[in-house]
């Protein structure tokens, strides 16, 4: 029952001009792959083909790594920090200038609401370059010794949930510290990385400093295996992260990993309920729940559980699911058929294992990949939906009676990326935060990101930090 009807408010696609096909960005040029392999990238909201994209093989990766090595040896490595800074400032400005184009393209390729790509992904990407630009000539002040040195050529593999933002998290600190980069965007979301290649050209970034090789898992594996890579930075699943750590065992390659999560969002009985509801919704339904730090386990104190759940369901019933380009949309499309299948499978397991499933009445489009916001109650710690990362708009609700029990349950996971605490009591926030085994703890807020703030996980959520002064360490010798 909607009190207000919304007229559609679609963002125009005309700001984006797509090519029918894209090559690899190597040594400052777009080039065809050696064996001519291609893949299609589609809009997950409509299943229309957006463009054909090259698939890089081992031979292409080899050329890209050689270009990066050459650029490192001859241009970027020897360049004074303050000149590197100026290139990064240029890139930050170009992202700001082309922000609408990037936002629309991101939404087309990824399926996320335009409101999020416009207000979160793209501004944060620009801010990240701006922040690390400032470090490029101040590394001696960063606390890693008098003259921190770059590592060399960095191989970076990023996921599909925040394609441009993850690119920024990877490339900005690597370049600021004097490394050169070969980056592989995700198979299903290569387009903003390819637009970023054009931004590198507009910035007159020296050829070979940034190379973009598109492809699927095999391309990433070729990059990881390549003997001339000095460091690998990976964001993605814990399973793949584990494989990478095994693959480089015995080499001198350095590695940082930003992997999965199963964050607990803990709501105490003195929490401001309306604020907490907003935070819970933002925690799990932001970006369709395709967020490694999503608050996918709601731990609510038993005495307020009914009240909170009623308020939460009322709020979730108001979420608008649909056209990602519509400026009113809250929840967009699931990124791929494969991911939709995984979310559906885990949700079915939730029901089969005895949890109670609830979704608001909402009409889903007939084309594309969609999943209604879903809340499971009566979830036990043994259920798969409480243990495994769903990476979708699915919230598992558990209850607790004492703070000690909340901490115990929150930490009862292989993961340790993030957590949330909701209480009016400051001393409780700090005491609970102390005991949570997680790399980021949000108190009375959730899913906040900033280039100055380090991000990364404990345990099997990976190692190393991205963002902030700490984020430099991953790229300095």
């Amino acid at each position, binding site marked *: 029952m909607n009190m207000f009807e919304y007229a559609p408010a679609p963002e125009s696609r005309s700001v984006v001009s797509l090519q029918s096909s894209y090559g690899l960005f190597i040594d400052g040029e777009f080039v065809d792959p050696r064996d001519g392999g291609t893949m299609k990238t589609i809009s997950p909201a409509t299943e229309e083909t957006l463009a054909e994209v090259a698939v890089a093989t081992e031979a292409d990766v080899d050329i890209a790594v050689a270009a990066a090595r050459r650029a490192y040896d001859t241009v970027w490595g020897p360049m004074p920090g303050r000149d590197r800074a100026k290139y990064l*400032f240029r890139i930050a400005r170009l992202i700001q200038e082309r922000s609408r184009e990037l936002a629309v393209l991101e939404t087309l390729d990824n399926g996320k609401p335009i409101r999020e790509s416009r207000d979160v992904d793209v501004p944060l990407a620009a801010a990240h370059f701006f922040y690390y630009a400032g470090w490029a000539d101040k590394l001696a*002040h960063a606390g890693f010794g008098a003259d921190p040195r770059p590592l060399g050529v960095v191989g970076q593999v990023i996921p599909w949930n925040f394609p441009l933002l993850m690119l920024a998290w990877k490339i900005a600190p690597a370049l600021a510290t004097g490394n050169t980069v070969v980056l592989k965007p995700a198979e299903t979301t290569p387009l903003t990385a390819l637009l970023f290649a054009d931004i590198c050209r507009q910035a007159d970034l020296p050829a070979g400093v940034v190379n973009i090789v598109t492809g699927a898992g095999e391309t990433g594996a070729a990059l990881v295996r390549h003997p001339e890579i000095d460091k690998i930075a990976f964001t993605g699943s814990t399973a793949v992260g584990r494989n990478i750590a095994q693959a480089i065992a015995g080499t001198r390659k350095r590695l940082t990993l930003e992997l999965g999560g199963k964050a607990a969002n803990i709501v105490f009985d003195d929490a401001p309920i309306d604020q907490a509801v907003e935070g819970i919704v933002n925690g799990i339904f932001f970006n369709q729940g395709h967020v490694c730090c999503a608050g996918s386990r709601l731990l609510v104190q038993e005495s307020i559980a009914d009240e909170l759940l009623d308020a939460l369901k009322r709020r979730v019933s108001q979420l608008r699911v649909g056209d990602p380009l519509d400026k009113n949309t809250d929840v967009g499309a699931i990124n791929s058929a494969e991911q939709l299948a995984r979310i559906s499978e885990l949700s079915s397991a939730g029901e089969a294992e005895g949890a109670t499933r609830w979704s608001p009445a909402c009409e889903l489009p007939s084309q594309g990949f969609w999943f209604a916001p879903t809340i499971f109650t009566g979830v036990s710690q043994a259920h798969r939906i409480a243990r495994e990362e769903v990476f979708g708009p699915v919230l598992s609700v558990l209850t607790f009676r004492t703070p000690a029990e909340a901490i115990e349950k929150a930490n009862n996971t292989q993961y340790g990326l993030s957590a949330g605490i909701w209480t009016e009591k400051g*001393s409780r926030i*700090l005491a609970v935060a102390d005991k949570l085994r997680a790399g980021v703890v949000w108190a009375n807020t959730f899913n906040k990101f900033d280039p100055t703030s380090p991000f990364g996980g404990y345990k099997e959520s990976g190692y190393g930090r991205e963002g902030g*002064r700490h984020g430099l360490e991953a790229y300095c010798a």
Partner: protein
Amino acid sequence: MHEVRVAVRKTYKLYIGGAFPRSESGRTYQVTSTDGAFLANAALGSRKDARDAVIAARKAFPGWSGATAYNRGQILYRVAEMLEARRAQFEAEVAAAGESPDTVTESIDRWVWYAGWADKIAQVCGAANPVAGPYFNLSVPEPTGVVAVIAPSTPSLLGLVSVVAPAIVAGNTVVVIASERHPLPAITLAEVLATSDLPGGVVNVLTGRPAEIAPWLATHADVNALDLSGVVDPQLATDLERDAAGTLKRVIRPAATPVDWAAEPGFDRIRALLETKTVWHPRG
């Protein structure tokens, strides 16, 4: 024979609270080039101008210090962009002062250097302190307040930028007395600041005689810090430092040895104009 166009010349005035007033005293003084040619009549700032400038700086302080570090960094970087675009004008002005055009290049890069510091100051000099008790204890830097600065007399532009940028990047607001002998680049810089989204009053530029104006700033009870970097006369520096002690202003003394303004500046000038605030909060 072509007709020679008669140029429109600029009136060089003060820069206070985002506006360009003449000196309330109505006084000016002649500025000449190194070969003695007349360049302009610059405003000869007075005690009242200095007080107006302090009022403007104080008024701008809450907004500027309350802006996010990211926002301040963006604005300082914008100053560099604007300065780069007007490079030729500055090169002509510093050349008339007998200074190298390289000082203009360095001045642009100096804004970029300090722009990058804005959101890193707290990360370099803040701390989470491991106190021996159940307390969260966090020390964060904050700007000291209104800073009065006597800019180096030469290099006129680079010296000025080198003392103003580190003061404002952390959120301080500034009243600066420009180079007495070469004040014109300072006023042109004010035109750059006025078109760089820098809020009015964050930087206030006075021209005139430091020996006349500075004592009023050194004793002014609403000034929190005094940067004497541009004071050459040791007696004047001592007098000003003593005056400043009356309200326990933070004082940056003139360097003991000549300063190489072209060298990478480091963090010292930022640090000198910071307060540290430590917050305790119980855990558990």
